[in-house]
């Protein structure tokens, strides 16, 4: 009976980051192997070491709007980013670009992100603004909500334009939220009650932390929303001394 009542053992860390590479070391390697000068420059500034406390990390929240969800076929149409730390989000460094996907927009996606044919027609190709984007990300830990989108779309976009892809460390607020939800449903009592993990969509996750509802599907606003969500998650689930290696991927 005693053993039944004892709390479920918890692993200290919410996320399993055992397969995360040693990013500073990997950057040093990539700097040598990258062929494009822009990528070489990007890898020149390594991210913080894995044992750096989250309170000292420079983050940058990144969000893309895309023509669809398949990185093999679809393209980026807008990019929003906001630099921040565990303490403060700096609107001053915010940036937003619309880029030309070089392919027709389908109607459903236009409805979602509100970016129209005429908006993208006059927009530059991603390659034109790539330097600015990479400069804003350099040396920082990228924060996204659902890492597959930003990582894969960025990688594919560069592969098709430069002939080589890109790698960078990310913190995924969706993964953190999913882990938090899973943990909240652990334990025999919760299983008995049939407790189900809550939604981990950006808006729903923010609600749980008392964060306000924002107009979704604007890359800059979503980046801000993601930055705020990570601040909230850090405030609730992590100490300021937590090493970044516990949450990066």
């Amino acid at each position, binding site marked *: 009976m005693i053993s039944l009542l004892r709390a479920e053992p918890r692993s200290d860390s919410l996320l399993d980051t055992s397969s995360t590479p040693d990013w500073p070391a990997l950057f040093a390697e990539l700097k040598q192997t990258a062929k494009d000068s822009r990528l070489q420059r990007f890898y020149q500034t390594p991210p913080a070491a894995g044992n750096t406390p989250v309170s000292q990390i420079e983050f940058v929240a990144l969000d893309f709007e895309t023509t669809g969800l398949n990185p093999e076929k679809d393209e980026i149409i807008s990019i929003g980013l906001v630099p921040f730390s565990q*303490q*403060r989000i*700096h*609107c001053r460094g*915010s940036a937003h670009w619309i880029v030309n996907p070089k392919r027709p927009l389908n109607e459903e996606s236009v409805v979602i992100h509100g970016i129209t044919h005429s908006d993208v027609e006059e927009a530059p190709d991603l390659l034109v603004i790539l330097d600015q984007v990479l400069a804003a990300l350099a040396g920082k830990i990228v924060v996204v909500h659902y890492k597959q989108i930003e990582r894969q779309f960025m990688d594919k976009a560069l592969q098709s334009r430069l002939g080589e892809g890109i790698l960078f460390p990310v913190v995924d607020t969706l993964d953190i939220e999913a882990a938090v939800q899973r943990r909240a449903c652990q334990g025999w009592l919760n299983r008995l009650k049939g407790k189900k993990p809550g939604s981990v969509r950006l808006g729903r996750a923010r609600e749980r932390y008392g964060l306000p509802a924002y107009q979704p599907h604007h890359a800059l606003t979503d980046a*801000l929303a993601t930055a705020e969500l990570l601040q909230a998650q850090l*405030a609730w689930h992590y100490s300021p001394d937590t090493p970044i290696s516990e949450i990066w991927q």
Partner: protein
Amino acid sequence: MEAEQLEVLNFISQYAPFDELPEEKLKEIALNTEVAYYRADSMILNNGDIIKDLYMIRSGVVEVYLRKGDKGELYNRLDTGAVFGQKGLLMNNKVRMPAKAIEDTLVYCIPDPLFKTLCDEFDHFADFMEWQDGTQLRNAISTRAEGNDLTTVKARKLLTREPVSLPPDASIQTAANLMAEENVTSVIVVRNPEDIEDEDTDILLGILTDRDLCIRVLANGIDTQTPVSEVMSADVVSLDYNAYVFEAMMMMLRYNLHHLPILKDKKPVGVIGMTDIVRYESQNSLLLVNSIYTCHTKEELASLSHQVKDCFVRMVDEDANAHMVGTAMSVIGRSFKQRLAELAEEELGAAPVPYCLVAMGSMARDEQLIVTDQDNALILDDSYDEALHGDYFKRFADFVCDGLNACGYAYCSGDIMCSNPKWRMTRAQWEACFAQWIDAPNPETLLNSSIFFDIDGVYGRLKWAEQLRGFVVRRARRNNRFLACMAHNAINRTPPLGFFKDFVMEKDGRHRNSINLKRRGTAPLADLVRVHALAVGSTARNSFERLDDIIAAGILPKGRAQDLRDAMELIYTVRIRHQALDIEQGEEPDNSVEPENMSDFERRNLKAAFQILSNAQSFIKFRYQRSHS
């Protein structure tokens, strides 16, 4: 590559004082804002910390304390759109009031240099940030008052020239010549300077109009060399130069006058003619008062009562201020009472002894609004004999009180009405009664004092009411114990702490979803003002006028009386507006408001007004202490 955060920009621009800033400034703010998240129960600002930003709550709830940490006294509870930290920024960038998130809170931080620039460039922004001393409230009120000339213009503004005057011994011929020369339709007759003994001597003796020349002089064949004093109208109805145009209109209607002399400290400063007024005539309250006097039965009067509400709503729509609405509603209420008294006399015959029908409470203070019951009493001549005259005044009182009830002025729940034999007394009995209340107060008489000491004659020997008021002021003023008791009584009803989301915060941390603005706002304010007014010997009836006397007497710290005036104006304004809204929506108006029905303006300023009331209540405790000697 800089990009504005649209969410930040849109949010900031919705809330004061940012909502009045130009687009360019708002963009600059949005661009420089920093965002920070605080989980529930975490400190945002600690006492003595360096503060580098103005904080604005994007979402969540923050408590601000007067002293250290969360053990300090709760000063305010703030939610979405509110700012904090301004005091620290204005005082050497040290945190003066610690702040704590009591729900998960997202704040926007506006950097100090930008905050200081905004204060320098925009007066309204700087004023807003200094709201703790009442500046913000005053601004809000004066901004509102600017737009509505019509209802706030004082009668003296209509005066275009010095009065044309004559001594009493001047001949009628001289008067006629003077009127022709000066192109006026009336002359006033004033006492010769050598006959003026002291400042209490009436200077204005009478008025002579072109109509008088026709009817009294020509029609009667009177010699034009006769002194004007023999044909002028003595007992002139006049008005103080501080009165509003509106009051002038009411008076001229009531007495069917075409010329109204305006006095400043007994000295005539001009005459207002009906034509001067016509330009300003727009309120149907004038017509209503006129209709009241043409009614011949109680039933006719009762059928007019629904027009009181229309009139009220119309005044609110015309942006009348609180003093104006209060005066108009009181004048209308008085007119009903006067007409009922006249009708009672028609039905019952003339009164066997002289009397004065008096109004008390809000009507006597000219602060009546739409939801009100009747508070009245009768002062009877000392020759009154219960056995002989008792029956007449009982029937008279019932006639008036029943009539008022039929006209929408509900019976007083405390039975403070002249239909209650207890409140029909002779002049000597009233004085003895008031003397006892002042000399030996008990909880019941203190409550009575706060009602009966606001007394105003409505019909009959109006002077008696004034004399009784003078008696109270003289007696109460030198009685410290009584003042201390009244002060104690005045702080029984406290204002709520403020508004918070959709409910009202009580001092003890509980909440309600509506607040009675009369019981928790205007009534305690009037109580407070009455105590100070008694202490300085003011005979004014209206709270705003009492405050003028209190300011003149200088018994309050500088600026406090002005703050009280602003707080009173604001609370009345909100009360009035919400009653008008109720009426327009076809609901029964009351004195309660629900925070969710308040505008951002009202919520913010009511908070400030309640704070002022609360401070004033703390002050009055110390100002009037019972002497134990």
